[in-house]
């Protein structure tokens, strides 16, 4: 990718919209492969991975141009290898970084060469190739998007649901996986706690929506944007519940897509449950 920026658009931007601002340039320390980003609304901070430099960069919420990160988590104690995505738990001052067969949890107020405050991983967790994490503050849970561990290397995509503070080699509370789950990717995820819904980008061209209470080979309760819609390669994802919006970035279209879906944001797990 020729230009590794963080571009900022207005919520109601549409079409050939101008960037309101962009974070870009050498001082930002940004690089490509920013497959995750999260906004900390309590501390008004932007948190993004820097894969090549094995770092977590934290910017002020209004950062623009060649702003320097206000904090950088980087160094030998971090254990970071090739961080790809991350998630911020603002109320609990934590940053989750899924990496391979582990999930690292850092103090979000930390800076420099710091060790993770907890590590989730091990055979009992049942996961490898952890690629994403989402946090449910209402139920005090986290969802890890990963692959199932498999001796033959044919792991299946899975959503593993753990207690939020789970640490070490512990079993998940529930797992959504299996061919019937129709999970084909565990891309960027977000949780809508009020509705108990997990939103997950799917490579087959939609956002799949599962209940946080689902367990086993359960298909998505809803899909957004497809299949058969205009979405090609959904990757980025966030929710704006105030405006009933699911916002998706699509690397096949090089576009941002906003779906206003009031029916989803009125949906609770009970209402969504199948007959």
């Amino acid at each position, binding site marked *: 990718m*020729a230009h590794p920026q963080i571009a900022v658009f207005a919520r109601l931007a549409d079409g050939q919209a101008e960037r309101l601002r962009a974070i870009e340039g050498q001082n930002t320390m940004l690089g490509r492969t920013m497959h995750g*980003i999260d906004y900390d609304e309590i501390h008004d901070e932007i948190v993004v991975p820097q894969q090549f430099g094995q770092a977590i960069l934290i910017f002020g919420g209004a950062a623009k141009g060649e702003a320097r990160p206000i904090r950088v988590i980087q160094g030998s104690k971090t254990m970071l290898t*090739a961080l790809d995505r991350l998630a911020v738990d603002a109320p609990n001052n934590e940053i989750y970084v899924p990496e391979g067969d582990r999930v690292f949890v850092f103090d979000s107020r930390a800076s420099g060469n710091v060790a993770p405050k907890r590590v989730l991983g091990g055979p009992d967790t049942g996961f490898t190739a952890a690629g994403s994490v989402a946090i449910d503050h209402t139920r005090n849970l986290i969802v890890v998007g990963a692959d199932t561990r498999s001796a033959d290397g044919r792991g299946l995509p899975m959503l593993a649901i753990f207690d939020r503070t789970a640490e070490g080699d512990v079993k998940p509370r529930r797992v959504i996986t299996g061919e019937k789950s129709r999970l*084909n990717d565990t891309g960027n995820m977000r949780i809508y706690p009020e509705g108990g819904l997990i939103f997950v980008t799917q490579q087959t061209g939609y956002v799949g929506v599962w209940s946080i209470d689902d367990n086993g080979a359960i298909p998505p309760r809803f*899909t957004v944007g497809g299949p058969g*819609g205009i979405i090609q390669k959904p990757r980025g994802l966030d929710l704006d519940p105030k405006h009933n919006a699911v916002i998706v970035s699509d690397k096949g279209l090089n576009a941002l897509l906003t779906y206003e879906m009031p029916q989803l944001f009125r949906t609770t797990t009970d209402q969504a449950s199948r007959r």
Partner: protein
Amino acid sequence: MTAVGHRWGAWARGLVGAVAGATLMLTQGHPDAAGGLLPHGRLVRMDPLPRDTGMCIWPAAVQWAERASERQSRRRALPTLGDETKVLAGPPTRKVQDKYPGFAAIAVDPERNEVILTDENLFQVLVYDRLENTPSNAEISTPKRTLAGDNTLIEFESGVHVDVKTGDIFAPNNDTVDTLVVFGHGTQADTAPKRALHTPHGTFGIAMDDARNEMFLTTQHDSTVVVFRKEADKDEAPLRLLQGDDTGLADPHGIAIDPAKEVFYVANYGSSGLRRADQEIRTGVPGSGKGRDKANWPLGREYAVPGSGSHAGPSISVHRLSAKGNDRPLRLIKGPKTQLNWPTGLAFDPVRRELFVANDMGPSILVFDADAVGDVAPKRVLKGPKTKLANPTSVAVDPKNQELWVANFGGHSATVYPIAASGNTPPLRTIRGAPESAPSLMIGNPGALTYDSKRDQILVPN
């Protein structure tokens, strides 16, 4: 043992370790051990896989998917969903998208009077007449030829090279396809390339050593230069690999060759981590693509030393054409006087003996003497509002016509200047791919986003 000998010893031990590690992984059925020998991947569905396998699927799956993709379309079959799923497949309420090309790389063919541009936004390679100059009252210029479509394998083509003898166009892919495509002169539309070389993940820049018939490519993720035969095709392995702690390579982008001095230049953004062949690999961490069983293939991210990453700042590193292994650069151009700020594209003028740098965030074109070293100011800087430079990411030299070409990723344009231009010089001609007033979004390969609920804003990284 000399320092050089010591480095070579370490490198050789690393390679032995890599081979031994691979053997161990295979015998243990390690999930990342496919190496092209075992069937791996997520065999959970019968849907065709997309060619988009580079960034977001793990190594074993990358290899499996690559094999699958050779016989399958890039278009993915729609999944079967039952009655339990309520499908909400309607159109989006809003769609932010740049409908015009984002010119990422440029090459000039003075023999055929053509300019070749890659477009990372709409996934095209466009060929314009060299003397094209978009009139101020015209919306855009129309290319002579366009290459685009599934058969071309064109997506994020970050570099481009034209062979002035044959007119062949070479275009490496930076992501999603991991394949360098070669088209014969005159090819257009949705035509398959004449050659399609599988390249390491994150390949960015390209330069050709015609005297030795060798093709040099930079790879970002693993901070390497890989050297192939110029005519390499399909699964051919590189001839040489330059990778290691001492190379000075760090998120390398553009590359250019000085044939007289037998050196090559690399533009580095500066971020990198260490690799060790004997490193215990992190299971499930993405690797360097599908070539781990090949000689001279980069050590991927799974071999990264945890917590070894650093940001060393931007530089131009200068290497012998024969450099390989962990060879040190001959010299570095680096420091505040250089004005380097995301140096992206490079071109070398063998007549004037000057190195041209497309300095993305200048926005500027920096010109260094071929022998520049250290913290040195450019001998010329092309910069200013009259230049119409906008996030320049690629530069090309036309020695025959004494012109300098620039691809402006942030301006939907290519601009051309006298080769000795400096300061706030307006372009001689401009090829516009969009109306002048159209904002340039520069969204490319957007793998994530977040919503700022305080400001009601959407943040999207490339």
